[in-house]
């Protein structure tokens, strides 16, 4: 029989206000095996832990039940405290009477009764708990960063700085991401390329960093410290090692009509191309869908021209398997395509553009060499209307947009408006907004400058519709402050579209077994306290894949993720989860049912000799679990018909004891 101590936490008034903690302590004191039962204001506090430790010592406790907040919060705290007193940490169980009781039930009698039942279930479980000892697993001292935008670049650089190897997997031919497409950055108006490209060069030159560009993650296996990742290096039909990036092929390729995605399709590129001048790696890529040679087998001009002999039309996708200790998701975002907002004319009017398209139209390296010309007739627009919140802040039921605020639009629109007024003072700029959101250092000042110094017309209201008439965009909008409906003849309309997570993020999350929210942003382990970690150990989050953010925030989060990775890689060994499966060889049939459902390949079989009846021996095939590989999901335990396979810490008996305690009538 265990000697169990029960500790009821008040959590200030969080629990005590709805649960009669004294009554719970009293009720649980009568449970079999309970030798000590008390309540305390804050069990997680230093003095609360001391109280528990003293009770363990004084009452020679062999098991502890803490009725408090979620075990996801303080289970580790209490286990550590118990361990300091010489009690095996796995002899501590938590009854969650805060999240599952006091916070959701209002009636004190009802809440108290439920708290007692949950406490009873925990006691019933502890009776069957056994001391567990965690094993250890080694750490592969290399990190993988998925995504080569500013988030991935910063994370990789910081990890490499600490002396660890980092691989970046980027699906595009070059790293740089969205920031490479941006013209200027708010609120300082630095040139984006001027601050990004040196970092890209740093990455290229850092010998700890290996870039897999034009590559995608194919599969992820393993667990924290020991991931095995297959990377698909897509065939770019150019030998990366031989290509010097001279660009000759990209100039001479006869296929000139391919829309240039880097410039948002405003101009064209060749079938063999380097996305932009500062691309890293600066290597050409053949776009097989558009290459005449690849499609018809006739041409081959680039191969003839290439002095380095880098062109290889027969190149195949290549699967590279690499091992990592940690993985960082930095999969970034895309602007929402506003084609569901018919009334704003994006699909029908050439001169209705998104903000990212405007960036290219204003960029010195863009299709217009930095002169703002409208796409339809290449003339200077004189009246420009900006529409805010396109696809952001929609009702969750609204299929056209996202429920969240995209966070960066107010600032970049202010930037755009300001830059246009600066360069073309004869232009009228209207910004239709719902709210102007400018929290951030020097952000509101920046916005006020747009209004006060640059005379941008900020109008509280929304654009109802945009119709093209004879080359003019008829904008109908409301001005809520004056109560008028406005009709503006505009030359260019710019939509501040919502940001959305990159489409690849969902499948990557699945491979990483990292959870996502309904918007496909990665979920953090704790919204406040662990914002750069995924709930899955060894998976970290960097940049917009976790939620909308601007460049400074992205960079700081990228560094934070790097710090977490470094903290992990600095360890030589990780403590394994001791709650792993184990097979009772006396019961094992060797049928392989468990092996088939094990996602980790942790189960192996061997023929072993057993004592048979009447001094005979017999050889049976039995399962063995590799405890360092097993992650403790328990799939095998249910697949096993004989009950030979069980899970430590969550055994059949333990779970049934909880069921019994809960259902007790």
């Amino acid at each position, binding site marked *: 029989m265990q000697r169990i101590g029960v500790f009821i936490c008040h959590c200030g008034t969080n629990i005590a206000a709805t649960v009669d903690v004294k009554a719970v302590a009293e009720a649980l004191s009568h449970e079999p095996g309970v030798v000590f039962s008390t309540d305390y204001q804050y069990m997680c506090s230093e003095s609360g832990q001391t109280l528990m430790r003293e009770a363990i010592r004084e009452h020679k406790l062999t098991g502890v039940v803490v009725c408090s907040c979620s075990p996801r919060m303080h289970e580790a705290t209490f286990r550590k405290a118990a361990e300091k007193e010489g009690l095996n940490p796995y002899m501590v169980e938590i009854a969650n009477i805060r999240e599952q009781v006091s916070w959701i039930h209002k009636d004190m009698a009802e809440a108290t009764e439920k708290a007692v039942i949950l406490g009873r279930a925990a006691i019933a479980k502890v009776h069957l708990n056994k001391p567990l000892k965690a094993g250890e697993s080694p750490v592969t001292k290399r990190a993988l960063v998925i995504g080569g935008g500013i988030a991935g670049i910063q994370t990789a650089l910081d990890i490499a700085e600490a002396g660890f190897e980092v691989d970046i997997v980027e699906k595009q031919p070059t790293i740089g991401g969205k920031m490479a497409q941006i013209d200027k950055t708010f609120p300082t108006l630095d040139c984006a390329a001027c601050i990004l490209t040196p970092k890209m060069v740093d990455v290229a030159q850092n010998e700890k960093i290996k870039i897999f560009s034009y590559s995608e993650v194919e599969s992820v296996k393993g667990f924290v410290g020991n991931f095995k990742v297959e990377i698909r290096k897509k065939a770019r039909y150019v030998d990366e090692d031989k290509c010097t990036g001279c660009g000759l092929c990209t100039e001479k390729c006869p296929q000139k009509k391919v829309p240039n995605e880097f410039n948002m399709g405003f101009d064209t590129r060749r079938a063999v191309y380097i996305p932009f001048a500062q691309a890293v790696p600066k290597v050409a890529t053949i776009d097989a869908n558009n290459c005449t040679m690849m499609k018809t087998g006739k041409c081959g001009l680039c191969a003839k021209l290439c002095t380095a002999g880098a062109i290889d039309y027969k190149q195949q996708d290549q699967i590279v398997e690499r091992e990592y200790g940690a993985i960082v998701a930095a999969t970034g975002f895309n602007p929402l395509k506003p084609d569901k907002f018919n009334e704003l004319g994006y699909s029908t009017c050439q001169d209705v553009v998104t903000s990212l398209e405007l960036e290219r139209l204003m960029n010195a390296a863009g299709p217009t060499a930095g002169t703002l010309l409208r796409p339809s007739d290449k003339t200077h627009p004189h009246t420009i209307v900006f529409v805010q919140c396109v696809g952001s*802040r929609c009702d969750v039921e609204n299929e056209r947009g996202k429920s969240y605020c995209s966070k960066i639009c107010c600032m970049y629109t202010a930037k755009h408006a300001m830059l246009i007024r600066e360069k073309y003072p004869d232009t009228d700029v209207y910004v239709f907004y719902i709210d102007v959101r400018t929290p951030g250092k020097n952000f509101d000042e920046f916005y006020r400058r747009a209004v006060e110094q640059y005379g941008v017309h900020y109008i509280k209201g929304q654009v109802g519709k945009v119709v093209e008439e004879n080359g003019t965009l008829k904008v109908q909008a409301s001005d*809520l402050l004056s109560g008028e*409906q406005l009709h503006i003849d505009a030359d260019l309309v710019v939509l501040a579209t919502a940001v959305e997570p990159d489409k690849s993020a969902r499948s990557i999350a699945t491979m990483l077994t990292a959870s996502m929210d309904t918007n496909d942003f990665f979920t953090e382990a704790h919204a406040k306290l662990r914002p750069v970690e995924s709930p899955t150990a060894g998976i970290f989050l960097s940049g917009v894949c976790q939620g909308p953010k601007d460049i400074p925030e992205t960079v700081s989060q990228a560094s934070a993720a790097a710090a977490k990775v470094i903290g992990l890689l600095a360890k030589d060994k990780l403590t394994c989860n001791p709650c792993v499966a184990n097979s009772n060889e006396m019961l094992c049939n060797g049928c392989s049912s468990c092996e088939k459902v094990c996602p980790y390949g942790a189960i192996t079989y061997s023929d072993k000799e057993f004592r048979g009846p009447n001094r005979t021996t017999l050889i049976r095939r039995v399962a063995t679990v590799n405890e360092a590989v097993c992650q403790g999901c328990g799939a095998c335990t249910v697949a096993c018909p004989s009950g030979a396979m069980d899970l430590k810490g969550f055994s059949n008996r333990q779970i049934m004891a909880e069921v019994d305690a809960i259902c007790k009538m």
Partner: protein
Amino acid sequence: MSHNKNAAAVEQILRSSGVDVRKCMRCGKCTATCPAFDEMEYHPHQFVYMVEKGQIDKLTASPSIWRCLSCFACMERCPRQVEPAKLIEAVRLSVIREKGANHLKPEDIPAMLDEDLPQQAIASAFRKYSK
């Protein structure tokens, strides 16, 4: 506050329209999109706001309620699924119910028709006046 006085009326309107006025984030897109804007004293977003604030009397007294074409553009475009047109319809309905009698009969319609009257207006008028 005028809330209490009109609480029953507000509740009636909210119930019959099924509109959750609290969802409105005051973007004004409904009003921006409204083709009858010039005809209306109170505009769609104001309906939402005023119902929320309990200012039903002003709305029922206003000719605005008869100006709405029920074209549902505001409902279509509202990013928050507030559906102002339903609300306007509900206010209108509350006025009609108060009057009690049937105000437009199908057989009266032919006499009222002229060439410029859009079909939609006939349909809306019938919806408005024949309750």
